[in-house]
């Protein structure tokens, strides 16, 4: 069944077609939600919300973009808005935790490179982090990222470049070791 036919059947209320659409896209949506949220419960919630909204709005889908692009635009909007709300709620809690457990500084305090990298990615500005995760971690193309985030693919490239530069700077003390 091609995409157009699948959409027509979903619009007509065909339950099997709804499930087929879900099966075709759920892995990628859930993976992205998990990569960005870093939490299984949040990733599930965001994925579910994405599909509930997609099924509700499919009647308004004009087919100008690919269905996956349209779906990922909903997914990134749900995830980023959801994360902003969660971050606001957690900010106070995190501030207290950070204050109580300030690192001693330097590599000895954080010998685990992967953990340090994860922290550096977490600390990237939202736009850079989203593009970095989508491109370098999940393998989206700049065109796909542009379609999902509503930006030009050139902007996506520029943000990726800045994200990498920021990470290189943050992890500078590991760079020599990595390259050698």
């Amino acid at each position: 069944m091609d995409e157009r036919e699948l959409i027509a059947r979903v619009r007509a209320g065909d339950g099997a077609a709804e499930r087929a659409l879900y099966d075709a896209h759920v892995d990628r949506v859930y993976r992205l939600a998990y990569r960005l949220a870093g939490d299984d419960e949040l990733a599930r919630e965001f994925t579910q919300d994405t599909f509930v909204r997609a099924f509700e709005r499919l009647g308004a889908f004009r087919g100008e973009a690919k269905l996956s692009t349209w779906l990922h635009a909903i997914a990134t909007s749900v995830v980023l808005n959801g994360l902003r709300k969660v971050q606001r709620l957690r900010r106070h809690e995190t501030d207290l935790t950070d204050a109580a457990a300030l690192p001693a500084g330097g590599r000895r305090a954080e010998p685990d490179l992967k953990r340090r990298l994860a922290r550096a990615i977490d600390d990237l500005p939202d736009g850079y982090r989203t593009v970095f995760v989508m491109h370098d971690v999940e393998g989206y193309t700049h065109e796909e990222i542009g379609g999902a985030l509503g930006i030009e693919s050139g902007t996506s490239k520029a943000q990726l470049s800045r994200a990498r530069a920021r990470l290189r700077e943050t992890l500078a003390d590991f760079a020599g070791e990595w390259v050698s």
Partner: protein
Amino acid sequence: MMDDRFEERLRDAARDYHRPPATPREEMWRRIEAARAARRRRVIVVRRWVGWGAGLAAVLALGIAIGRWTAGGHGTGTPSAAAGDADQTTLAYRVAAAQYLTRTEALLTGFRVETRGGEPAGQFTAQARDLLGTTRLMLDSPAARDPRLKSLLEDLELVLAQIAQLPSGSDREDVQLTNQGLDQRSVLLRLRTAIPAGPGPVRAQGAL
């Protein structure tokens, strides 16, 4: 060259960043279906409320107008005509009260079921505010001359005021207190008893 190798290593290491587990397809699908079914039910209930609301407002306004007009001594007809007017007034109030009580029951039942299922209470505040206004009109109307109905209307006023004031991000405790109030005063039971039985808007049984 150094930069290229660094970026290559960076990409390799980044693959472990928030590495997702296997997609919980079935569980998420069940929850999506449940969420969509709940939304569909809510849309149906809201549509019904809008219809009832418009009808109720019109009938209540008509009933109150007739009541005030007859109470003000504007009637010039014979005693039998006056008795007929009084009957019409009573009938208008009964229609208005029956519709109001049915609508309130739908709201409170929906509130109890949805909030116990963990759904947000914010969706009910607008309807509660609307019904609260009608409750106050009912309390000022001849319908409140019946002590049983008056007592019920006073309890409904309190519960609807609580729901209307629930903040959008209200915590479970606020919602729980409102539900406890509903249970302790047997509001839903008394409300259902007061709603006349039968299919039509004006019925022969119940408190009215």
